[in-house]
């Protein structure tokens, strides 16, 4: 699980929903679920590399699931098989899957689904309920089912599953652990629900990053222990340890 800086070839890059792509990159990878890579497929512009979670690791290589938001992800979306990508990683801590056992809820919103495929794959001796919320179009859930005991879908538009927010479906007291990734307001609700009933909640945070390796202190968040680096001590934090206020 040592980190490296490497160049690798894109094996495939397909659009799986509106603005959502799944890219497979060739090579031999090993990482802790929940870790991420700093990706780059350009020269100096845009200046910074982009943090993208590990979606899956297979014999064919590593998979990333990403949403097109701006310049960087737009460039990713245009990569074709054979194009080169620079990867720095795996970085960050990932989930502590030795501890997380029993009845587990995985709660994601939108592209927050990205890291959870690899995570669920590695949760052992547990039952996993997978709660996924989307604005309208549902993606990736089909193959996520592989590792989930139950799948509960919500959409804001009501196009699939429960009409409304994902958290409306969740009863935190039923679980030993809750793992969450998605928009901050959603994770805040999940964290609070867990705290109310004493269920530990792990959240995977986002932050603007420059170095990705813990050197620049640009990505810090507020934790009980003071400022911690999302790229190094995170992106996964125990909900009660971390502040989700801006």
């Amino acid at each position, binding site marked *: 699980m*040592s*980190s*490296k*800086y490497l160049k690798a070839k894109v094996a495939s890059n397909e659009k799986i929903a509106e603005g959502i792509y799944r890219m497979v990159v060739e090579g031999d990878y090993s990482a802790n679920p929940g870790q991420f890579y700093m990706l*780059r497929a350009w020269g*100096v*512009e*845009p*200046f*910074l*590399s982009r943090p993208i979670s590990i979606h899956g690791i297979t014999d064919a290589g590593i998979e990333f699931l990403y949403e097109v938001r701006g310049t960087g992800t737009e460039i990713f979306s245009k990569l074709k098989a054979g194009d080169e990508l*620079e990867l*720095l990683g795996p970085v960050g801590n990932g989930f502590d899957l030795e501890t997380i056992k029993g009845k587990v809820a995985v709660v994601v919103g939108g592209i927050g689904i990205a890291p959870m495929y690899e995570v669920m794959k590695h949760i052992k001796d547990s039952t996993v309920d997978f709660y996924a919320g989307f604005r309208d179009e549902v993606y990736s859930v089909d193959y996520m089912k592989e590792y989930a005991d139950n799948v509960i879908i919500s959409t804001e538009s009501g196009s699939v599953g429960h009409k409304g927010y994902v958290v409306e479906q969740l009863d935190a007291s039923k679980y030993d652990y809750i793992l969450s990734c998605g928009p901050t307001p959603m994770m805040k609700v999940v964290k609070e629900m867990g705290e109310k009933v004493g269920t530990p909640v792990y959240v995977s945070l986002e932050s*603007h*990053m*420059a*170095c*990705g*390796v*813990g*050197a*620049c*202190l*640009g*990505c*810090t968040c*507020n934790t009980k222990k*003071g*400022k911690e680096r999302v790229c*190094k001590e995170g992106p996964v934090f125990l909900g009660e340890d971390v502040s989700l206020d*801006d």
Partner: protein
Amino acid sequence: MTSLKVNINGVDFKNPVIAASGTFGFGEEYSEYFDVSRIGGISSKGLTINPKAGNEGRRLHEVTGGLINSIGLQNPGIDEFIELEIPKMRSLNTVILANMGGGTMDDYLAGASKLDKADVDIIELNISCPNVKSGGMAFGIKSCVAHEVVSEVRKVTKKPLMVKLSPNAEDIVEMAVKCREAGADSLSLVNTFKAMAIDINKRKPVFRNIFAGLSGACIKPMALRMTYEVAGAVDIPVIGMGGIMNAEDAIEFIMAGATAVQVGSANFVKPDIMLDIIDGMEAFMKREGIKSIDEIRGIARG
């Protein structure tokens, strides 16, 4: 035999490529990615006498050709630096510059006194810090203020004293001259440019402090100009930086008169970019039949 060796204030550097303060931590983080002992030196993240938590809110904002940062000198304090970080840095087997900031004259003096006795090769005095007494205007804006700080710090340390200039100085040449007069052994420049960004959707500045520091490729043409001007005005070593992304950029700074260079934001683009720069400089020198970097230092000054 092509040699990239340089000597700054009696300290030998394998080559003139130094990691810039605040972009390279204490070097450890990058040692996973490449052989850090190959670079000329490391300037530590900015240290203060007491530990500092740094700024709240957004700390980074990307712009064309660079980034704006508002880290706010987060650091563990000089005592912890001396106790925990120096031994680890030493094991990286390269020159150590202790980059030090402060909010008051007392902070600077207390910090410098401690570093004077520590196992660091050079003290790099960052005078871009906001001066608590003068309503937050940085020490590095007015030459007279800088002169005072440097003079006082000079009295408490015998270590080589490198003063790091701010590009926001009212007159960078006068600033350089004053710092040298005040006892600086060498000068490094530039620190980040005062800049800002506005989030038009939120209708407010991106950063809590409104203003923050610009670095990266975008500042190179100005940083090079300032290095050229300063190198012409003082007779002590000048260490140039600001947007150096490759060997060509580094050579421009050397030809402008810099003894060595520092590389900051470029480390974010490619973790081992300093090795590319070192190798590229060596290749250029071989191609051009240059034996020592001294042959081209300041050559563009005519």
